[in-house]
């Protein structure tokens, strides 16, 4: 047994980290005994800004909580407001929101897969994942007007419609990139480099641990917890065929890597269900206060995450800051648990498995 030393990992910048988080690693020789996280480098106080802004303008701010899973944040916020005011969203808007959310999810997973490959030092795979992501982003930009900050959600509906012709093109495009995604998945699960880097149950959480530590999203599902907020059928998920759940962890890979694997390709493909008679322009409604609802609670899976927003609002003037709960914040305790007992050299890979989005976590 050697001496214990503390090594700062990313104070707060580290080549492997996309965003600033600081981990104090207590080491015994090369082995991590304990990890102590510190966040707060990018705290922007976005929740507080709710008090100052018009509730309709805040959609754009909510969207900027994250620069990757932005669309889901705006939908979550809009859902909360719609719930408070008792606004019903037209079905077409619900479906289009769902399409965009799934696109968001795909590009977010691809981004994460790329970063995970980068953490392993597999640059070629990293580039490959991001190249595929561009394909998704192209469709996003063509339909919403923004690549990653879509700005196309509004309270009560959506700000842009997708024409039927475009929907058809999108389906064709997805069909085209699907084999590429599957190929990329195969590399992640079968390649020697990846398998070597993720060998021997690195960073595995048992189901009980994951549940107890409050893991959410892919982190929880990777440990075998059956938890996917999409299966509640919110927005239009009830009307789409979304495969939830995960492929069983691939033999020999650590429990934590296969999490979002396969999800890129599995994310729901927009069906032609969105045409119908319900097609309407996004509705614009004046927000009248309704004091019936005081508190509501929403759960969302932002691409790989889960956003938990607890809104409190009666009238616009009384709009209270919602504590925005994003999956990274919730997944930090599981991360700390996963880090204990692994080698220093494996820390970057394990940190990346929770898909750390510190900007989300700190708002």
């Amino acid at each position, binding site marked *: 047994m050697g001496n214990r030393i503390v090594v700062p990992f990313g104070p707060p910048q580290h080549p492997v980290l996309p965003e600033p988080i600081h981990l104090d690693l207590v080491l015994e020789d090369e082995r991590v005994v304990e990890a102590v996280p510190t966040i707060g480098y990018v705290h922007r106080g976005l929740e507080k800004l709710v008090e100052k802004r*018009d509730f*309709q303008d805040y959609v*754009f701010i909510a969207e900027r909580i994250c620069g990757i899973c932005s669309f889901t944040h705006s939908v979550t916020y809009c859902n909360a407001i719609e719930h408070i005011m008792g606004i019903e969203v037209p079905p077409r808007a619900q479906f289009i929101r769902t399409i965009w959310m799934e696109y968001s999810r795909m590009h977010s997973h691809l981004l994460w897969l790329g970063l995970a490959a980068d953490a392993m030092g597999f640059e070629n795979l990293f580039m*490959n994942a991001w190249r595929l992501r561009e394909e998704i982003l192209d469709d996003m930009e063509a339909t919403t007007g*923004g690549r990653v900050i879509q700005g196309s959600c509004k309270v009560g509906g959506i700000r*842009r419609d997708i024409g039927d012709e475009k929907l058809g093109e999108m389906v064709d495009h997805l069909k085209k990139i699907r084999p590429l995604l599957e190929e990329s998945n195969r590399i992640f699960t*079968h390649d020697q480099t990846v398998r070597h880097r993720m060998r021997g149950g690195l960073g595995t959480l048992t189901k009980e641990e994951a549940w107890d530590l409050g893991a959410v999203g892919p982190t929880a599902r990777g440990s075998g917890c059956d938890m996917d907020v999409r299966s509640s059928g919110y927005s239009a998920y009830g009307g789409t065929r979304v495969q939830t759940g995960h492929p069983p962890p691939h033999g020999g890979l650590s429990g934590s890597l296969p999490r979002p694997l396969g999800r890129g390709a599995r994310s729901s493909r927009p069906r032609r269900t969105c045409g119908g008679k319900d097609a309407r322009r996004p509705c614009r409604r004046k927000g009248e206060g309704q004091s019936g609802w005081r508190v509501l609670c929403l759960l969302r899976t932002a691409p790989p995450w889960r956003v938990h927003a607890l809104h409190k609002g009666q009238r616009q003037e009384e709009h209270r800051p919602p504590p925005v709960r994003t999956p990274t914040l919730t997944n930090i305790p599981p991360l700390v648990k996963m880090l204990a007992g692994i080698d220093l050299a494996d820390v970057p890979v394990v940190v990346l498995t929770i898909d750390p989005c510190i900007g989300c976590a700190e708002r």
Partner: protein
Amino acid sequence: MPLFTMVKRALANVTGKPATLMYPATPAKRYEGTRGHVVIAIEDCIYCGNCQRHCVSQAITVDRAARTWEIDRLRCIICGRCAEVCPKDCIFVEPDYHPSTTGPAVEFVQGPPPAPPKEEKKPKAEE
């Protein structure tokens, strides 16, 4: 063959065309609906200041007395909220991006003098 799963992809990458564009020689991708920058048709503006009030990033300043409309391009997040709230629909979001800049990028638009208070309803004279 776990060792060579990447080989096929790598070869395709080496022999194929680059996925990226040769920017700036090739112009960036742009779609009809891309939000690039905000422009105003000042002759229709009534200087109500709605865009200023709803601007999320406080990039717009409207001066009713001086009949000016001002936008800070570096602050603007091109959300298009101003275009949405404009009662005269005279703010538009154009698909091309503003060229990059190192200095301040405040754009100042001077409105035409108020029209005589009769006929044509172009810019209404505000008292």
